[in-house]
């Protein structure tokens, strides 16, 4: 079976692409870990157009319901993760080659085009101790796990929106919250910052570079350095939340498409095209500067329509059939 399109991921970009491809009656496969994308951990999304307020989980449900409405056109493989993609050797006479994707369940799927909407994942600190104490005091989802740090002294690394929001999540539970920021000021929106100002238990540490997470069975502390004075310091901690941005999930198409130094897939944003014909990309995995649900959905639509046009063109005669040299 050769699909017209395989969509990788079901956040706003992948889900929007699936709906549009289904309505074009293209045989589509959606391979994803889950629906909803990164904002599934958000308590309250207030900028999804048409919804004044919706939780990440409910938005994910809406995506899933919408895509599942088109069961005849869209096959869904979930939970399943794509691990690699490759181009299949062109058969003689074919104008374009197919793609093959391999998954963590050792399945292989073949498609004429790919829509890469694999999103991004939490960026890690990559310092000693982080992997050892992952889940053992090192946490990446404050919405989920903040209450478990009741009565503890904790640190949050990262002074962007996510970091400051983690501090807000921890305020009712932790006895002391250190917020470590590498630069000399916070990057979070002013409105978000205001919520943690003048709170006795919050201490903001600027110019801080994390060095090592300390612990035995569980986290007991953090070693960091003031990058201005080069002085090393230790904090005694019962937990640590990491909120330092995201890393694009682009490894699966490495070698096929051009990727920038941040790991983002370079797209021609007019058509959501990548550097490789037949591969389209949308959402947080791309170099689009605004990582937003609404934008990802719109770019997913672009990718779907471009994939559709690409497939229409494939149906035209190949150069070989026209008697021209095709190799």
């Amino acid at each position: 079976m050769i699909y017209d399109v395989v969509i990788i991921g079901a956040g706003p970009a992948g889900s929007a692409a699936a709906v549009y491809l289904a309505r074009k009656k293209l045989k589509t496969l959606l391979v994803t870990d889950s629906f909803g994308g990164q904002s599934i951990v958000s308590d309250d999304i207030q900028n999804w157009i048409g919804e004044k307020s919706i939780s990440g989980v409910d938005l994910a449900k809406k995506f899933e319901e919408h895509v599942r409405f088109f069961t005849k056109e869209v096959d869904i493989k979930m939970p399943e993760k794509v691990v690699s993609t490759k181009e299949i050797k062109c058969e003689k006479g074919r104008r374009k080659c197919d793609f093959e994707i391999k998954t963590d369940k050792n399945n292989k799927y073949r498609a004429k085009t790919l829509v890469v909407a694999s999103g991004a994942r939490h960026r890690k600190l990559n310092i000693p101790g982080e992997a050892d104490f992952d889940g053992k005091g090192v946490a990446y989802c404050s919405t989920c796990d903040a209450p478990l740090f009741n009565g503890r002294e904790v640190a949050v690394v990262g002074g962007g929106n996510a970091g400051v929001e983690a501090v807000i999540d921890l305020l009712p539970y932790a006895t002391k919250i250190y917020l470590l920021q590498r630069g000399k000021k916070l990057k979070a929106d002013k409105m978000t910052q205001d919520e943690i100002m003048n709170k006795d238990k919050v201490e903001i540490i600027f110019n801080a570079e994390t060095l090592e997470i300390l612990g035995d069975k569980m986290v007991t502390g953090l070693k960091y350095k003031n990058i201005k004075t080069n002085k090393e310091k230790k904090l005694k901690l019962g937990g640590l939340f990491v909120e330092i941005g995201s890393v694009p999930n682009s490894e699966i198409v490495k070698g096929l498409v051009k990727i920038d130094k941040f790991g983002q897939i370079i797209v021609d944003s007019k058509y959501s095209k990548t550097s490789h014909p037949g591969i389209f990309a949308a959402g947080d995995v791309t170099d689009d500067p605004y990582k937003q649900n609404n934008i990802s959905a719109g770019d997913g639509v672009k990718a779907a329509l471009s994939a559709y046009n690409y497939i229409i063109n494939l149906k035209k005669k190949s150069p070989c059939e026209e008697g021209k040299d095709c190799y």
Partner: protein
Amino acid sequence: MKKVIIYSTPTCPFCKQVKDYLSEKKIEFEDIDVSVDQDKAQEMIDKSGQMGVPVVDIKGEIITGFDKDKINKVLGIS
């Protein structure tokens, strides 16, 4: 029927997903809110060796996170 316990917090999206999934499959479970019960929070940490929710305990089999495949396997459902 196997006894299923879920350790969760009210704000955790993956907890909600696990609970929705089990309800959908008509599997009964006991839901423990570890944000209000410190003893149970410690019990969860002891059982799972980690501090993240959700933790699903299916008659002693401990599953962390919303791991649909594992839950299906342990419960023998699909």
